[in-house]
């Protein structure tokens, strides 16, 4: 069990800034997800915490102990690799027990813990098999069992579910989360899949281009994204972004863009803003802010319908309506949303504007 403190971590590969000043505090026992697109630096950050990657500058602390220059083996960590890295020349039982064997535990102690870990992951029947005889999902469980066999201070996971098929992924998501809750081990989990992040993370750290964009709970990130990147990255289908001009008469203001008029309570203080509205917050029929759009493509998910349509000036807008609906291409539909659900952003800085 450990608190992890990352102070102004920088990692440069020559000219390339993989990590550009990361400061992050992770609570003891927290499940923290590092989320972001490919190349954002999340894996580099994970590997720096593990010690497999050295840092250019900055510090990493486990419970006030400076581990920045320690070798991975001296940090009391465990890791689940994306490819599982289950050693092919050892049986499952020896794979799981190896961390203990290296540290010189007794045979009885090793066997006890291996059985416990295997039981936790429901792979007790597989202990005497070789990895080549296992399926991908089974190998993944072995990797996790190996990672928990010696209570690590920090558990690191590098996209462990990305190589599994969809059904298995959903199942393992809840299993891993429950496992972590039961063990209470501080966990740092890397993924590019926002659904995994939202459902598993106590907090989510969204990264882009080597920098932390926002750190918060799923709710904070969803409801109050700090910039357009986070707003666009979280939520599927992606948030709609509409450019609008501010028209103010002193007390009230209207945002006019793409033929849509949005009244707001106070002047945002900018001539131009970007209005964000999530597809799931747009409904059929008239409402507080109504508009007419021409349908050009429908995606029927049965439980909901995603409508791709265009506003009067050709701007594409996506809306997601609950239930199964039929629309014809070219049909004109009236839709609306509430101003409570909009997000305002500064077009230049892309940062959120509070009103």
């Amino acid at each position, binding site marked *: 069990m450990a608190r992890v403190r990352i102070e102004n971590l920088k990692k440069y590969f020559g000219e390339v800034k993989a990590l550009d000043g990361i400061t992050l505090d992770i609570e003891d026992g927290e499940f923290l997800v590092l989320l972001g697109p490919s190349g954002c630096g999340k894996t580099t950050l994970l590997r720096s915490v*593990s010690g497999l990657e050295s840092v250019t500058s900055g510090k990493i602390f486990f419970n006030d102990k400076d581990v920045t220059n320690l070798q*991975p*083996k001296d940090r009391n960590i465990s*890791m689940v690799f*994306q*490819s599982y*890295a289950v050693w092919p020349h050892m049986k499952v039982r020896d794979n799981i027990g*190896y*961390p203990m064997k290296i540290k010189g535990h007794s045979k009885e102690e090793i066997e006890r813990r291996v059985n416990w870990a295997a039981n936790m992951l429901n792979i007790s029947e597989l202990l005497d098999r070789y990895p080549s005889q296992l399926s991908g999902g089974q190998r993944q469980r072995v990797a996790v069992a190996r990672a928990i066999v010696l209570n690590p201070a920090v558990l690191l996971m590098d996209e462990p579910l990305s190589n599994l098929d969809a059904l298995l992924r959903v199942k393992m998501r809840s299993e891993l989360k429950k496992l972590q809750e039961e063990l209470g081990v501080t966990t740092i989990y890397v993924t590019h899949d926002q659904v995994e992040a939202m459902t598993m993370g106590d907090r989510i750290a969204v990264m882009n281009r080597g920098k932390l964009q926002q750190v918060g709970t799923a709710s904070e990130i969803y409801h109050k994204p700090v910039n357009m990147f986070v707003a666009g990255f979280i939520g599927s289908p992606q948030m709609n972004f509409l450019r609008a001009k501010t028209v103010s008469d002193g007390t009230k203001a209207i945002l006019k863009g793409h033929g849509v008029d949005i009244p707001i309570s106070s002047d945002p203080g900018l001539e131009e803003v970007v209005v964000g509205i999530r597809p799931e917050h747009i409904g059929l029929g008239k409402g507080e802010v109504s508009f007419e759009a021409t349908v050009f493509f429908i995606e029927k998910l049965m439980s909901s319908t995603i409508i791709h349509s265009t506003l009067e000036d050709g701007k594409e807008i996506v809306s997601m309506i609950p239930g199964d609906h039929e629309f014809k291409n070219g049909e004109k539909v009236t839709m609306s949303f509430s101003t409570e659900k909009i997000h305002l952003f500064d077009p230049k800085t892309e940062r959120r504007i509070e009103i």
Partner: protein
Amino acid sequence: MLKKLFFWIAVILIAMWFLTPIVMIFLAAFTPAEDYYNPHKIIPSHLTFEHLYKLLFLLDGWKSIIISVEVALIAIGLSFLIGLPAGYAMARYKFKGKRAINLTILLTRSIPLIVVAVPLIVIYMKVGLSDTVLGVALAHTAMILPFVVLITSSIFSGISVEYEEAGMVFGLTHFQSFVKITLPLALPGLAASAIYSFIMSWNEVFVASILTLTNRTLPAHILNTAMASPDYFKFAAGVMMAVPAMIFIFFTRKYLISMWGISLK
């Protein structure tokens, strides 16, 4: 129907093409002298080991076999000792000058040992290495080294670095991880390349001939006594050269084939 016939004819022709010379030399090596010189006897009446015996024990055959083995073992040991770390470095690390080194090694592989042999013997004579097992072994090491670097590099590239990293996370230093995790996984490939290196050294004739006078490896011995001895001794010598190599190849055939990038699935 006709197609099947052609097919089987092709198979038989190919098999015969490759087997015939081998069968011939074995047959000739074990044919008694009288039968060999008898123009009407193709298949000998009985097989004899006397040529092989004489070659081994009267004509220094045994001595040159031992020298060949010594040379090959030293050459393999030395080239793996020197080359395996280099192969690992090439496989795992990116660094400046890697391209240049890769190119140089490839280039070295293509330089015929012939070119190196003459000045080498001149140098050897000055330092007292001429006509020694060590001298030939050092030259053979130079021949095998580029191959070892390239092949170990390829072998280590094929072993996921995450296996090593997992070892490092769970308590091993990098070196320990290499020894306990990567090496065992690399062993089949390394063994196959060691055997192929052995065969390269065992068969090498030019350099071995130039560098030695009395302590000759088997092929050098044959080359230089070829003119003098009766035919059947030559054939017995050929068989002696071929048998160990063929045995090795037989036992490692699967690994060698995959080493060359051929899959049997």
